[in-house]
């Protein structure tokens, strides 16, 4: 296995007025292709910030983030947006579905950024929704779905472009025990069966157990 993600000497601070708040301190970590990594740690430890840096929605103050050979810390705004569209699948704690769009339309969104034809998009959306077990609910709106189902739509949206990595921020944080378990089983399957590299931030030790590797962060340092 080769490292698909390489975080090299990354530091990140935020500024509040003139006060610098360090969040990550000179972190280096590698994730192998096909790995399922759980990032754990107390609130404010910097785990979500690290995830955001890997996913290319935030930029490090220092250091480099290399994903599948691309140093994303050096990409400009527009190139980074294009990179995210091609390379990252996002799974959020609160699903972040667009309420006015159906499950089908939500899953189709990332494909609108590709050159696929309408019929090709339809085929891929249907495949993704069927894979997460929602083939029958394609034309339901988010409010017509349960939390677990909404998260499954979000997972379908994350995998529909066949991205290089999947990033999940507390994917079970808003779900009951049974739904959480279903989601984790689905993620485990994406990792084992479809060889997806997954980085998951979680508070939940049960969720972390499903990962192949667990790393802890505390006050901005990997421990």
């Amino acid at each position, binding site marked *: 296995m080769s490292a698909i993600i390489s975080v090299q000497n990354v530091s990140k601070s935020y500024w509040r007025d003139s006060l610098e708040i360090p969040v990550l301190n000179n972190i280096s970590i590698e994730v192998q292709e096909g790995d399922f990594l759980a990032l754990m740690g107390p609130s404010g430890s910097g785990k979500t910030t690290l995830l955001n840096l890997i996913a290319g929605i935030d930029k490090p103050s220092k250091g480099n983030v290399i994903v599948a050979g691309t140093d994303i810390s050096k990409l400009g705004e527009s190139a980074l*947006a294009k990179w995210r569209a091609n390379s990252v699948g996002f799974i959020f704690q609160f699903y972040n579905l667009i309420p006015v*769009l159906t499950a089908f339309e939500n899953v189709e969104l990332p494909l609108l*950024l590709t050159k696929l034809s309408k019929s090709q998009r339809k085929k891929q959306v249907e495949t993704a929704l069927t894979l997460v077990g929602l083939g029958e609910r394609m034309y339901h709106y988010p409010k017509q779905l349960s939390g677990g189902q909404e998260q499954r739509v979000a997972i379908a949206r994350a995998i529909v472009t066949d991205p290089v990595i999947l990033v999940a921020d507390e994917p079970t944080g808003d779900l009951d025990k049974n739904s959480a378990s279903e989601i984790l089983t689905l993620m485990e399957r994406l990792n084992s069966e479809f060889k997806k590299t997954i980085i998951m931030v979680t508070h939940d030790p049960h969720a972390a157990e499903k990962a192949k590797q667990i790393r802890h962060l505390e006050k901005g340092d990997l421990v």
Partner: protein
Amino acid sequence: MKIPFKYTLKNFGSRKLTTGITLIGISLVVFVFAAILMMAYGVQKTLIATGSKENVIVIRKAANGEISSLVEGEVQDVIRTLPNIATNSDGKQMISNEPVVIINLEREKGGMSNVTVRGVGQVIQELRPQVKIIEGRMFNFGVKELIAGRSINERFKGAKIGDIVKFAGDDWKIVGTFDSGGSGFDSEMWGDADQLLSSFNRGNTVSSVTLRLDNMSNWESFKRAFDVDKRLKQHEPKIEQKFFEEQSEAMATFIRILGIFITIIFSFGAIIGAMITMYAAVANRTVEIGTLRALGFKRRSILFAFMAESLLISVIGWLVGIILASLLSFFKVSTLNFGSFSELEFSFALEPSIIVSSLIFAVVMGILGGFLPAVRAARLNIVKALRAA
């Protein structure tokens, strides 16, 4: 690729109250804007319809309109000698020497207003064939009889057939009502020119001379003959339609300037309304914006999506406003015409340029109202936007 239009469309319907109020605001501004342009165009259309392309009118050069124009008897005689004036089947020259005076009549709805009384010559029905008697009969020449235009008949007391109108110390009997097809003549009363001149002690000095040329292709040669005659240097001939078009200009311009000034002030309210709605839309959808950006949609896609939403509101507002305004075409109003100092009845009239200019006006409101909120949406930091959950 852009964010799909259905996203814009579906969001448009998702906050019905705020969107609805903004839409009403924009449609009202469009309504007022279009109504004023329709009013100005209505005045122009009515006055342009008054004049004929086939007739020539002679007035004094310095005069703003017929009411301030004087054409003396000697001048009338010189005009008769000019070439190319048509004659009717009886061999009479088609010339009508017309005194125009203003009298005061009481309106049906109360209050007094000015009414134009025009004295006309014997060939008038051939000179202005669009004028038709719709009730009663034509006045007789040589007696103090009048016919009233349709709108005078409807809007003024004592302007019905059989009524007596008193002016210049004489009693004038109304014997008929005429219709000139919605032109300015509908707001006039007509009688024998000679009778009117004697009542007002004006000798033989009329306000204008209207005549028909044998062929309008001879207009230039007629005008040359007119211009070279030194006895006519105080006067000028104009094609009748052009003359009435010029008469409408002052009033139409006044309505337009005043109206556009008022609507621009109104539009500030509508723009602020649209801006508040769009700022609220951005605030409500911060997480969505963050999500779309995380998925790879670029800043400009977000900008276009929100601009599209604002434009959609303004275009629908325009549609509602212009439909409401078009209903005004069924209404007639009357006002004092600056050109003749008397009442002029006209309809609101819609024309393609009003539809286009009001659309442009609505789109500008949409752009101004939507731009800052859309820029804000596009500039949101992804991480902060996602944290707004």
